[in-house]
């Protein structure tokens, strides 16, 4: 029996390079749970992106989730300064407790630092994503067309539907981090059907034929490449795109085009 591992790897790597990947879901800082290896410094992350053939990445800081957004966001900006391939994604909080100061002021300074995407962690940070706590924040994000990246496990599907339909111009990107891979299609499909502003990111998107199914039903415009590096292995998401059952142009949109479009649509 003969294998073709070297040939397969070469064609995979060539294809990754040709698609110009922009990773929407990268982290610096140490994750808060055990794993076999950690990359946590920005230099290590960049070296690994090179190894994978990923051109650019949008990065958040672990301490923005596990300590406080003010701490993590600040560390993030300092860490990625001087790395033009990296762009930031801030973790935010709702305005009621005033922890970020003036929301408008915080968002303005964030945009000045070229940070054009945000993440919310309602469960980890112990608040509701519902409008009764988050309407001030969500309305401001919607006004600025700032993409919101959120994990379904950090809220619930009913709230996701309410928020996405009430804030219909807010770009919402669902990420399946720390969750079974796309096993929620019975929630996800009707949500994508009813809310044109919702998209999905590819990390943990390895439900059998899952990405192909979403592209088939809703088009490649609803899928964004993300890997959750360095918690998850980026090569899993990479091959779901390079090996996808859809045309090259669709792969390019997923690899970088859709995220570039979202970021360039932000109202400064």
């Amino acid at each position, binding site marked *: 029996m003969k*294998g073709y591992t070297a040939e397969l790897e070469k064609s995979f790597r060539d294809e990754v390079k040709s698609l110009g990947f922009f990773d929407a879901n990268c982290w610096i800082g140490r994750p808060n749970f055990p794993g*076999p*290896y950690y990359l946590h410094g920005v230099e290590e992350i960049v070296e690994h992106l090179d190894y994978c053939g990923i051109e650019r990445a949008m990065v958040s800081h672990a301490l923005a989730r596990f300590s406080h957004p003010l701490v993590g966001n600040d560390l993030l900006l300092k860490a990625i300064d001087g790395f033009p391939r990296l762009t930031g994604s801030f973790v935010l909080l709702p305005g009621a407790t005033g922890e970020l100061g003036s929301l408008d002021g915080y968002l303005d300074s964030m945009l000045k630092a070229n940070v054009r995407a945000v993440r919310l962690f309602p469960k980890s940070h112990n608040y509701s994503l519902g409008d009764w706590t988050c309407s001030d924040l969500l309305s401001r994000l919607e006004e600025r067309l700032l993409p919101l990246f959120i994990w379904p496990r950090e809220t619930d599907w009913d709230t996701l539907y309410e928020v996405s339909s009430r804030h219909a111009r807010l770009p919402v990107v669902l990420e399946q981090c720390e969750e079974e891979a796309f096993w929620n*299609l019975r929630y996800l499909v009707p949500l994508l059907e009813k809310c044109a502003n919702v998209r999905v990111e590819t990390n943990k998107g390895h*439900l059998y034929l899952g990405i192909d199914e979403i592209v088939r039903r809703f088009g490649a415009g609803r899928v964004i490449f993300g890997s959750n590096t360095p918690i998850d292995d980026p090569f*899993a998401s990479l091959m779901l795109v390079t090996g996808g059952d859809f045309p090259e142009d669709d792969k390019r949109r997923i690899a970088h085009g859709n995220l570039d479009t979202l970021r360039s649509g932000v109202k400064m």
Partner: protein
Amino acid sequence: MSAHDNLEPFIIDAHIHLGHMANFFMPDNTLDRMIRLMDRCGIKAVCASHIVGLMTHHFEYAHAETLKAVQAFPGRIYGYAIYNPHFPEKSMEVVKDHLGKKGFIGVKIHPAGHRYPIDGVGYTPLWEHASEHGIPVLTHTWDATPQNTYPYELVPAQVNAQPKLVDPVAERYPDLRIIMAHSGGHYNGHLQAIEVARKRKNVFVDIAGETISFGLIEWFVTEIGAGKILFGSDINWLDPRAHIGRVLGSRISTADKERIFYKNADSLFRFS
């Protein structure tokens, strides 16, 4: 995968499923579609167990469906018989019958799905038969308290499938070859799986499942050696392309990748 569409399929996927899961939607869940996907991503053969046999007690139905699949695609789909420890006599009879049929290459057990511990006495008839006849057994393994989630979650049924429970079985039956599916599931299970696989020469692991942790393949190769790792994808729960990508991209030698992709399975199941 356009650049390598013309390569002859060579990967052996030691861990896939047939049938439906009750709690999630499996798109395009047909044998024809699976074979097209296998062709597209370089998978020569898959070793399949039917979900109904693993998650319910309807093992007769599961075997009949597996047999149909094996007969529909000889040389591409191989079958696992499924042993159910709650019905030792009847189940063993069905297992023996199917192991005598062309295309059945081993036995699959699911201690979490069947809510029965790997080291429980209900499995004894299987261990004895498999050990005596050189039949590989693939067992689901997982960790009861996966720690790569936050906050941590307890998964009670998985208590039955902890890799550490494989150790006394492997010790008692040194000729029995056991594959620990999912390499133990999550981090704490991985630690147990490594400990058992290092200690017992008759214990192997596969990389199937939803866990795609960074550095996992390199870690297992370092700790237990590539010769004990089988490629598995968990089709039709999960997509084989993710796992092929992980192996291809890992920082291990091409020779080790070949062992994982097909050489170990070829030697364990004696396809050649």
